[in-house]
């Protein structure tokens, strides 16, 4: 990388992490607001038509409507999140359904190894199945005590807090279980297939 010309007095709009520095992954900075990032138009999904589906390598695909999904056992989650565009937000408060609960409703094929999350608007992201289970991921429909806002992925968003936040697909509509890994929207154009913030797995080859 060529030497960058440093601009006198420029620090950027970054919070000092202070005592929480040990919670900020390398190369990240702390933010207090919640930046909105989007690769496409914000869908306005009619909840009467909304479904969440698990398909692919399962014995019987399963699909929940909005009201059915609300009846699944929900939990509160408090998580730190890190976006590959270098911001980290601490103690974000979510409400939603653990992926463990969702997967209890299907019988997984023994070849099942990878998952593609798919969303309204065509966005996809890929995650190894073992990284979605044992409390590591949830489908959120509440944020900070309110329904999850459309610009943050509402009505429902996959949240995988231990990976960079592009893996936490906004407007998620289902999980496709597969034997082989298939690169998602950003993973197919230079972004790391795995995306662990603590290992700074930002780009392909990192």
């Amino acid at each position, binding site marked *: 990388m060529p030497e*960058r*010309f*440093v*601009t*006198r*007095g*420029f*620090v*950027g*709009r*970054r919070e000092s992490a202070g005592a929480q520095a040990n919670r900020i992954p390398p190369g990240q*900075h702390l933010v207090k*607001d919640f930046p909105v990032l989007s690769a496409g138009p914000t869908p306005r999904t009619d909840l009467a038509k909304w479904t969440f589906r698990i398909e692919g390598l399962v014995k019987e695909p399963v699909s929940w409507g909005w009201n059915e999904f609300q009846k699944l056992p929900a939990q509160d989650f408090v998580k730190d999140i890190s976006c590959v*565009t*270098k911001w980290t937000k601490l103690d974000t408060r979510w409400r939603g359904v653990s992926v463990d609960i969702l997967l209890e409703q299907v019988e997984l094929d023994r070849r099942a190894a990878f998952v593609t999350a798919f969303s309204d608007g065509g966005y996809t992201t890929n995650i190894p199945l073992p990284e979605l289970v044992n409390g590591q991921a949830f489908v959120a429909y509440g944020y900070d005590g309110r329904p999850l806002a459309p610009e943050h992925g509402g009505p429902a968003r996959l949240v995988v807090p231990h990976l960079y936040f592009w893996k936490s697909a906004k407007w998620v509509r289902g999980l496709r279980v597969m034997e082989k890994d298939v690169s998602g929207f950003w993973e197919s154009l230079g972004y790391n297939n795995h995306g662990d913030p603590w290992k700074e797995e930002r780009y392909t080859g990192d």
Partner: protein
Amino acid sequence: MKRTLEWQIAVVTAIKPETAEVKTLTLALPNWTPHRPGQHYDVRLTADDGYAAQRSYSIASEPERTGEIDVTVERIADGEVSPFLLDTVVVGDRFEVRGPIGGYFVWDESVGGPLLLVAGGSGVVPLMAMLRHRAAAHVSAPARLLYSARTYEQIIYGPELDMLASQDGFKVSYTLTRQQPPGWKGYARRIDDAMLAEVRKPLGLEVVAYVCGPTALVEVAADGLERIGLSADRIRTERFGPSGT
């Protein structure tokens, strides 16, 4: 125009307040090349730890002014780059720029006229480059500007626009959407089809139109211009909004 777009280090040689939240920075460029009015420069700011932020700014000046450009910067609430450019930068400071960029939203003498310009807020900046070029190059094509601002105090380049309008072939119409001074004779509502038709009328239907402003204004004005009879291929738009990395 085959050439690599290289970053160069601009030097701030003048800072002029335009309104309470808008300033114009004059940048001297070691590798200045003539631009087409409507083009922009990318600005890149880098902190000492390597953290960088990049934004695009339209060129406000005319290409007849060589060796330097003006960029006009409006404060974005909670922004990262505009507060730095407005509050921290002083004459003599240096930062990286590359440009000129963009060949779609451009107008110069070769495009001709009549020229119909529609601006919302700081969307007037690239249109000002067109008007300054029109005056400097003595382009005879008639031009009109419809400029929407919230208040009189938020009009950018007001005195210069009024001076240009005292010359042949150019008129400016303002609409103040939030608050009007006592005795205001201009428009006092959001841009609509009737307003566009009135401003367009003296120019005929064979105009070239440029619309620049916030997305909502651009959509309304561009759709409105089609409804009052302009063909879509004569309307060019540029949306202004929070941009960058």
